Each structure stands twice: as structure tokens, then as C-alpha cells.
């Protein structure tokens, strides 16, 4: 058992070194979510609250976001998006390793495949989680307000658990795909095809209630939705969310388990 853990740590350690050496690339990748947050947040605020600095409960009643201002409403979605992109595309590391031969070095070694998958997944999650947390911190700087209905400490803890589960689930999905797809272009294409719809029907931009019924039912099979909704519980409070946080987290947990099993299975097959 301890060799499993040790091998996993060894593989993770290598990912961390690589991550550290490419930190500028990672920071650059955060530009996109920051733009989303700043531009959409500002524009949505103008659109729905007539330029007021906060929500206008007694105002026009036009705001679709309930008691939450638009900028703050976007935060859970953008954080989840950062985690989603960072996680799922980290699967490309498997393709890189295959291409540059390092995968062989690991596969020949007396190391279990599960440790290799776990170590790589931890590496991918590390960078995605750092990204998510940075975006969360930045959002307060540009005027987003957190209004959790839970005690602050619990909200923070649950938000972290959400990011962890979301990240691990999508990293595993990325690794599973990379075990099957051998070309980088193919991988990027398939992932974009998956990621964009997942993002748009996740209730990141608009509350579930605004969507037509058929889209709502699609949303319920989208793991991303549960991540956004759990974060919404933690950041905007339960009145802004669609489901109770424990339901969101249970689904995410199940999703992560299934993806892990799938990734380990496909990676083992892929030699």
C-alpha cells in the first residue's frame, strides 16, 4: 500500500516541478476568466440593474438574479469554468508524455498504472485548483460580494470541497480521453466540443429557471451544473441556488468516482 502512495507522490512531484516551471503559462491562462468576470459582470450589471452599484430589490424587478447582483452571480460560474478548463485540458499531459517518450519510462518501471493516473490527476488538479482559488480572490477585488447562507467557515470549506471534486472529476475525464486519443489536435477538438456546451448549460450565466424545459433537463445531466450550483450555494447563498448543497456534492462525488474508474481502466488498456 505504501508503495502505491509513494509512487503516486513521485509522479505528482514531477507534475509540480513542471507546473512550477510553466507558471507564467498558467497565469496567462487565467486572463480569459478574468475578462469574462470583468466584462460580463460589468455589462450584466448595467443591463439588469440600470447601472446601480448593487441589486435593486425595490426597483424595476428586472434582475433575473434575485437578490444577488450580476457580478457576484457570475463568480461561481467563472470559478467553475476556470477549474473545468484547467482540469480537462491537463489530460493533454498524457499525450505529451506519450509523444516525448516519457510515458514509456514510467510504464516500464515497476509502478502500478493506478499510481501513474493518480499522480498525474493530482498534478492537473493542483493547477486547476490554484486557478480557481485565484479567480475567487480576484473577484472580491473587482467588487463581487459573498452572501453565503451558511456560516462563513462552512461555506469556505464546502467551496473548497466542490472545487476539489469538480477538478478531480474533470481531470480524470481528460486522462480517460487522452488514453484513447493519441493526437493533440484530436484531443483539443473533442474537448472543446465537450467543454463549451457543458459550460453554457451549467447555469453559470443565467439561473436554471430562465431556461426552457428541454434545456433544463439537459442541465441535470451536466456535471458542471452541480459544481456551479454547489459554489452558488457557498457564494451567493441557498436562495440563489437550484438544489441544496449536499445534493450537488453527492452528485459530484459520484461523478468523480465514475470518472476515476473510467480513467484508470482506459489508461491501463492504452499501452
Amino acid at each position: 500500500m505504501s508503495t502505491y502512495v509513494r509512487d503516486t507522490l513521485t509522479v505528482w512531484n514531477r507534475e509540480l516541478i513542471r507546473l512550477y516551471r510553466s507558471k507564467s503559462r498558467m497565469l496567462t491562462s487565467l486572463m480569459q476568466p478574468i475578462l469574462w468576470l470583468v466584462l460580463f459582470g460589468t455589462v450584466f450589471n448595467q443591463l439588469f440593474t440600470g447601472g446601480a452599484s448593487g441589486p435593486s430589490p425595490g426597483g424595476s424587478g428586472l434582475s433575473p438574479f434575485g437578490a444577488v447582483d450580476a457580478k457576484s452571480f457570475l463568480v461561481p460560474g467563472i470559478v467553475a469554468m476556470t477549474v473545468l478548463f484547467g482540469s480537462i485540458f491537463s489530460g493533454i499531459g498524457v499525450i505529451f508524455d506519450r509523444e516525448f517518450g516519457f510515458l514509456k519510462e514510467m510504464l516500464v518501471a515497476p509502478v502500478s498504472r493506478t499510481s501513474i493516473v493518480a499522480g498525474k490527476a493530482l498534478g492537473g488538479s493542483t493547477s486547476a485548483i490554484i486557478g480557481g482559488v485565484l479567480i475567487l480572490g480576484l473577484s472580491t477585488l473587482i467588487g463581487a460580494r459573498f452572501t453565503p447562507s451558511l456560516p462563513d467557515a462552512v461555506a469556505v470549506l464546502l467551496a473548497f470541497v466542490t472545487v476539489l471534486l469538480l477538478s478531480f472529476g474533470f481531470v480524470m475525464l481528460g486522462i480517460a480521453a487522452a488514453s484513447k486519443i493519441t493526437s493533440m489536435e484530436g484531443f483539443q477538438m473533442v474537448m472543446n466540443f465537450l467543454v463549451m456546451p457543458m459550460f453554457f448549460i451549467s447555469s453559470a450565466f443565467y439561473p436554471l429557471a430562465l431556461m426552457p424545459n428541454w434545456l433544463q433537463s439537459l442541465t441535470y445531466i451536466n456535471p458542471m451544473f452541480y459544481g456551479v450550483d454547489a459554489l452558488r450555494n457557498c457564494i451567493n447563498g441557498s436562495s440563489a441556488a437550484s438544489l441544496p448543497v449536499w445534493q450537488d456534492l453527492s452528485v459530484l462525488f459520484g461523478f468523480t468516482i465514475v470518472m476515476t474508474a473510467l480513467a484508470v481502466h482506459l489508461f491501463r488498456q492504452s499501452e
Partner: protein
Amino acid sequence: MAATGASGVGTPATSTSAGGTDGPVVVANGLVRKFDGFTAVDGVSFEVRRREVFGFLGPNGAGKTTTISMLCTLLKLTGGEAKVFGFDVATQPDAVRHNIGLVFQDESLDEELTGYENMSFHGRIYKVEPKVMGERIEELMRMVELWDRKDDQVKTYSGGMKRRLEIARGLLHHPHVLFLDEPTLGLDPQTRRLIWDYIRELNKAQDVTIFLTTHYMEEADALCDRVAIIDHGKIVALDTPANLKSSLGGDVVLLKIPECKEGCMEALAGVPGVRSVKAQEEGLMLAVDKGDRTIPLIFDVARERGMTIESVVLKIPSLEDVFLRYTGRSIRDTKVEGLDQFKQRHTMRHGMGRRHG
């Protein structure tokens, strides 16, 4: 296919850990590997003795890499059996992997990591004792003269340096056998010689048996104690390079003597070491045992008889000639076919062969 042991292979001095063997380090018995009906390796049998440098020489697609992959437990055997250091490759793959070092034909380093980081990653996944690891890494990296570059990222290394690092890495966990698949492929001649020196030194200093594949005649000749010539998945000859060459019937001396008077051919045939004399258009062709030693004797006889020798050419058979003799064609114009074509396409697709001198 006489297996004469003129290579001075010592008897095993140290007894080895459980499962080890005092006999041959690698035993292959009737190895067969098929890919979708194409037979890449077709009943190959051989033994590698302790501490020798054993080479597989053959053209691309002859089955060299396939054989190495089977011995290293990377490919399943279609038929036959193989033992490495006493462990069966089919039933005890983990034990085999612990006892071998492997340097792939294609690069397998993490270029973002430093040389030292690549080494310590390897040491950790092969469970090298942390206490001795630092020392061992330093010893090996000094040996391949990369210690002063240990903290540089591998992407700044030249092709030859990467190869050296891979060879050092392959030895980190004290393997008993080091497998080298085309160790100098794509390297310039100077770097190649340097790598040969390292391989020789490691073989002696690290007490490690070496199994290598190559399609370079000079490489097999310069490095190997014994060479197996492989073609179309079969071993066609196996012996020391010297024996293989002398099996062709010795050296050839070509003499141009304008006035070869009567009795001159007979006189030449009588020189010690000369096996036969034939008159050809360009001159006389003499089959001799050792050209370098026989030529002075021929000159002595010629002078005694007052014959003038206009020119002399000595031809020493190379492994190239041996290959030609056993396969009926030259290794250089061997056509790429079958599996190899597949492999080459595969190689291109995966951007391998990126090694630059």
C-alpha cells in the same frame, strides 16, 4: 553457428540474489512474435553470458526491437520462452523489470526536468534506497560526464548528452543486464565513438551485462564480444566478430605483377599463410590467413625471384561481408518491408527520431 567463447567471459564471481543465476544472464528459447499474421521474430534462440557485451546486428525490420521488447516484458511472446536473470519474462515480469535497465531507441526523458531530476525520478520509481541514491546518481553522472550540467533542464542538452543521461539512468537501480536499443542511432560519428567508450567502461566498471541492438556494422564490431546476425526474424549467424569474419575464409591480397614468369604462381602459393592463388584479369588474387603478416613474406619471395610488384591491395573482410554472405544481400540496401514499414510510419506519426547530434 558455432558458439565459441573466445570473448574472455569470466565466470560469475559473485553469487546473486534470489532468483538469480550463475549461468547465462539471458536465455531465449525459440522466441516467436507475430503481428496480425506477420512474423516479426521467428524462432530465435540464444544465450547472453554474464558480463559480456552481446549484440543483435541486422537491418531495420529484422526483429531486433521486437526481441528486446519481449525480453523486457513490454511485448507478450507469441511462442517460445525467455528468462532474464533466472526470471521468466512471461510469468515474472516485475522481477525481470527490477533486474534490467533499458535504454529505448527513442528518447524517453522529461525535457522540462533537469538531468538530476530525471535521475532521481527514476531512482524513486525503481525504489533505490534513498540513502545511497544521491551518491549513486553522482557516480553515474560523473561517469558520463554530465555532473556539471546536472541542474540544467534536459531540453538544453545535445543529442549525445541526452543519450548519455539515458544510459546513466538505465544503470541507476543496479540492473544486472542493460538493454540498449540502437544506442547511437542518429548521432554523429564523433559522439558515437564517445558513447562506445562509455558503454565499454560501464560494462567493466559497473559489472553489468549488456545486450544491444544495432544496424551499424562498425558498432557491432567495436563493442560486442559476441554478435548474432538477425535477418527476417531469424538468427543466421552467431559468434565473436573475429570468428565471423574469419569464417569467410580469411583476407584477400590482390597483387599486380606485370611479368609473372613460370613458377611464380607456385612460388607464391608456397608462402606460409597463403591458401590459394588465382590469376585474374586485374592481377593475382591470393586468399591468405592474415594479410598484414603475409604480405611481407610475399615481398620477400618476390624479391628472391626477381619479380616486380607494381601494386598491392589488402582486403580484410568486415561484418558487412559476413552479412552479405549469410543473407545474400548488403545490409545497406535491405529493403524496408512489412512490420518495419508500419513501424516507420508509426515513428513519423509520433515524431520520434528527434535526436540531433
